[in-house]
């Protein structure tokens, strides 16, 4: 059974093996390189393999976000809670600069937060965001998330993330 979420303009769908090529095109592309650095092909591949494995292990995971009108994949987003994570996260990644500025990330993230609270029954959800990632911080704030100064952040290359906690807007407890 695969999981799909519809929003007005987007479809969030569980990735499968047939998405390998489109995912590798993203991880081999400019935007990924700019954000995450140069990664050799096996690392890019294992990122995708891990994305699929997370779904099998946890029963949930990050969706591929497609624009209904064009059927193009613009990002991956969704609930993430691998072993070693401080707490349950909603994570998002946009794949191309063209997808920026259209409100797609907001629309998808709102659906993902709602999914975590309403469908998965999470008590709370955060997003780990590096302080210098202003675009991502703006999105978290637009979603109504608030920095939780007491929460444990994650460390990437010696920099500790902020922890934005998502409110349960409109989701029945």
């Amino acid at each position, binding site marked *: 059974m695969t999981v799909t979420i519809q929003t007005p303009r987007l479809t969030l769908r569980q990735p*499968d*093996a047939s998405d*390998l090529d489109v995912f*590798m095109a993203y991880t081999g592309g400019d935007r990924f390189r700019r954000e995450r650095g140069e990664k*050799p*092909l*096996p690392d890019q*591949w*294992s990122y*995708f*393999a*891990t*994305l*699929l*494995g*997370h779904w*099998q*292990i946890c029963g949930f995971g990050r969706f591929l976000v497609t624009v209904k009108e064009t059927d193009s994949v613009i990002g991956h987003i969704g609930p993430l809670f*691998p*072993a*070693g*994570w401080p707490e349950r996260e909603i994570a998002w990644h946009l794949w191309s600069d063209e997808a920026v500025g259209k409100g797609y990330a907001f629309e998808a993230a709102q659906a993902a937060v709602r999914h975590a609270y309403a469908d998965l029954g999470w008590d709370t959800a955060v997003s780990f965001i590096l302080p210098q990632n202003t675009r991502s911080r703006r999105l978290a704030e637009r979603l109504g998330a608030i920095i939780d100064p007491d929460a444990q952040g994650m460390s990437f290359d010696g920099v500790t993330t902020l922890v934005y906690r998502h409110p349960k807007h409109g989701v029945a407890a």
Partner: protein
Amino acid sequence: MTDTLQTTRLTLRRPVPSDWAAFLDFMMSDRSTAFGSHKDLARAFRSFAAELGHWDIFGYGMWAVTLRGDDTAIGLIGPWTPPDWPEPEVGWMILSDKAEGTGIATEAARAAIRHAYEVLGWPTVVSYIGPENTRSIRLAEKLGANLDPEAPQPKPDAPVLVYRHPRPAGAA
């Protein structure tokens, strides 16, 4: 595609999420010092998730090795072919001390190598082994594999030993 192999004493089956506990025990133990995810919880999870994802992507992957009649994974053995790996590999991780000295790893590896040649139709099979991993080196030698110093390296900045497995007698 065959998800399961049987040998005299063993069932090799596709790994499932519930094998995580056995995998994690291994990665947190001193048995796994030769592996990149040793004592690193987040990396161990990613390695295990990638084992499952490998099956999704290719329709084959490393099998969970179990004793017939006991579903507990005591090893992971089998095909491992991420893109950019210079040659197709049969890899192994012996998760449990209980397999030590029993010939279980040899039995499982022989079945996996035969499967790679006969069913997957690979032209050659190698195993990449860390230079310090003496247990794995012994297993490769017991299997009749030959060290190939000319073989291309999977990660040139961190060279490993490349053992090449001969085609088993009678294999197509």
